[in-house]
């Protein structure tokens, strides 16, 4: 590396001799002569960022992250952690995948296209819907895009989306921003013991209903029992039924198509991605009727000049780079690499592994809730429902105080009400479940 400019970018490979001959070819003295920036807007100050060696940056960041308290998390509410097998990192981190761009030249990006086609196929299998795109940013933006799709489909009549009162605040905030420019409205229906209150839903549904949104499992971990009835409310009013779920729940719970879902949204990063501070992978699947209204990229099969099967991004006229202000969405860069990770993880689990992990999500939530319920001072689960992965605990003491004490015992849980905690169990933390129960007991005493 000695021939390189010592103070330059370590990733600009120019030798001094090369730079000199390139400048000579351009008949200028320095690179600065190539810039056409008027003096009054040129920046000649210092940014004040000190360059560091690779080792120094790694040390700095390792020290920074070590400031995080090391707590065993029993957390969910839309961001879940499942054990990610080593093979996912090793394959997805292959440079051919991670350092490639969007597949605008399909002839030399068949590998990624096929992987995304397979990811779409897995979602088609699990949702029962024939069209799935190759990713949205996260569940919140996927819900927002589904709502906008419903608004376009119902553009002359319906302008309202009905959402549960328990919709996670972050998701609701994103939805509000997306519908703001479309003139659509958001209305809220009530919940009954964790699940949708059909009377409340029916009371606010009407001809202006463009979409009804429900979740399975709900944000409080309950398994919805009235999906078909919710779909009927949407369809009776000529609205769409948008169902929020996740990749693992899909492997066990009612197939969305069979209960009347028109659009399925949610998180697919429950597989493939470890806990990552909320980074996601939005699912978007729908019926063929709405194919040309789908946001984001779609991979399709075709043939090459030798009549062999080949894959390509398709139906791109929906997208911003062609349709501009009339595009179905402004999305360009998506979460393709996260989709690759989820697909590898799902392939590794196979149908047996997916179903078994999903069944464990029900059983483990049930048994952990039962154990906490036995401790004086708690009632769990709060809702008399089946649960998937997580549940709400009623606390006699203020929930925030309990959570604080659990943190000093080494555990992190959600505070979801003055006297409510939420606990999530997966294969990542299940080995610590007994210790969590002991901590609950300790804290109660």
């Amino acid at each position: 590396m000695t021939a390189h400019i010592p103070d330059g970018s370590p990733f600009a490979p120019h030798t001094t001799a090369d730079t000199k001959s390139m400048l000579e070819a351009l008949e200028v003295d320095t690179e600065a002569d190539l810039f056409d920036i008027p003096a009054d807007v040129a920046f000649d100050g210092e940014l004040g960022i000190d360059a560091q060696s690779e080792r120094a940056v790694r040390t700095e960041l390792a020290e920074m992250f070590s400031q995080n308290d090391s707590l065993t998390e029993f957390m969910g509410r839309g961001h879940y952690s499942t054990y990610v097998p080593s093979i996912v990192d090793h394959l997805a981190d292959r440079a051919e995948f991670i350092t490639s761009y969007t597949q605008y030249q399909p002839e030399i990006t068949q590998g990624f296209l096929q992987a995304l086609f397979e990811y779409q196929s897995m979602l088609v299998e699990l949702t029962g819907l024939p069209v799935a795109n190759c990713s949205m940013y996260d569940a919140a933006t996927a819900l927002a895009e589904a709502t906008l799709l419903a608004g376009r489909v119902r553009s002359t009549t319906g302008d309202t989306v009905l959402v549960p009162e328990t919709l996670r605040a972050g998701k609701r905030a994103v939805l509000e921003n997306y519908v703001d420019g479309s003139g659509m409205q958001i209305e809220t229906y009530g919940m009954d013991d964790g699940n949708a209150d059909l009377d409340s839903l029916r009371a606010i549904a009407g001809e202006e209903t463009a979409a009804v949104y429900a979740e399975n499992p709900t944000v409080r971990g309950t398994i919805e029992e009235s999906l078909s009835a919710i779909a009927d409310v949407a369809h009776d009013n000529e609205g769409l039924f948008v169902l929020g779920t996740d990749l693992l729940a899909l492997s066990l719970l009612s197939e969305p198509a069979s209960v009347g879902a028109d659009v399925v949204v949610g998180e697919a990063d429950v597989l493939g991605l470890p806990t990552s501070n909320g980074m996601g992978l939005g699912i978007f699947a729908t019926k063929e009727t709405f194919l040309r209204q789908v946001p984001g990229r779609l991979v399709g099969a075709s043939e090459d000049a030798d009549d062999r099967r080949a894959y390509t991004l398709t139906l791109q006229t929906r997208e911003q780079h062609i349709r501009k202000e009339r595009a179905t969405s402004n999305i360009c860069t998506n979460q393709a690499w996260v989709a690759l990770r989820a697909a590898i993880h799902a392939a590794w689990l196979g149908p047996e592994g997916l179903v078994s992990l999903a069944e464990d999500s029900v059983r483990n939530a049930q048994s952990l809730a039962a154990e906490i319920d036995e401790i004086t001072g708690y009632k769990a689960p709060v809702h008399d429902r089946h649960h998937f992965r997580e549940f709400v605990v009623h606390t006699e003491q203020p929930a925030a105080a309990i959570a604080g004490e659990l943190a000093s015992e080494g555990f992190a849980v959600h505070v979801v009400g003055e006297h409510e905690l939420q606990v999530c169990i997966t294969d990542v933390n299940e080995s610590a479940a007994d210790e969590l129960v002991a901590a609950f007991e300790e804290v109660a005493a």
Partner: protein
Amino acid sequence: MSFDVPEDKRYLESHEWTSTDDETVRVGITDFAQDELGDVVFVELPSVGDTVTAGETFGVVESIKAVSDLYSPVTGEVVAVNEALFDEPELVNDDPFGDGWMLEVDADDPTGHDALLSPDAYAAQIE
């Protein structure tokens, strides 16, 4: 490159053509338009019974890399749409003035057709 501009049709600047048998006006897009678009992959048309308005859009034609609005040359009720295009949009490329037609309209004012560009005028436009 020269494009077919049949003598028995009238034209819009936006590259639609019309022909009439006095009862209905048939509408499609020109040879020039299909060549500009490239491989047509999708055509969105109104339904029979819908009303179209002269100078306003009645549908969309898509190729792989472009989307184009379709403008109606006349005002009236749609009496037929070329449903073959839904399965074989390539007909627009293969035979734009024949099998690739799009709509038949019962025009409120059938003489409106005569006021459109003549073949010569259209040919001059695309030259």
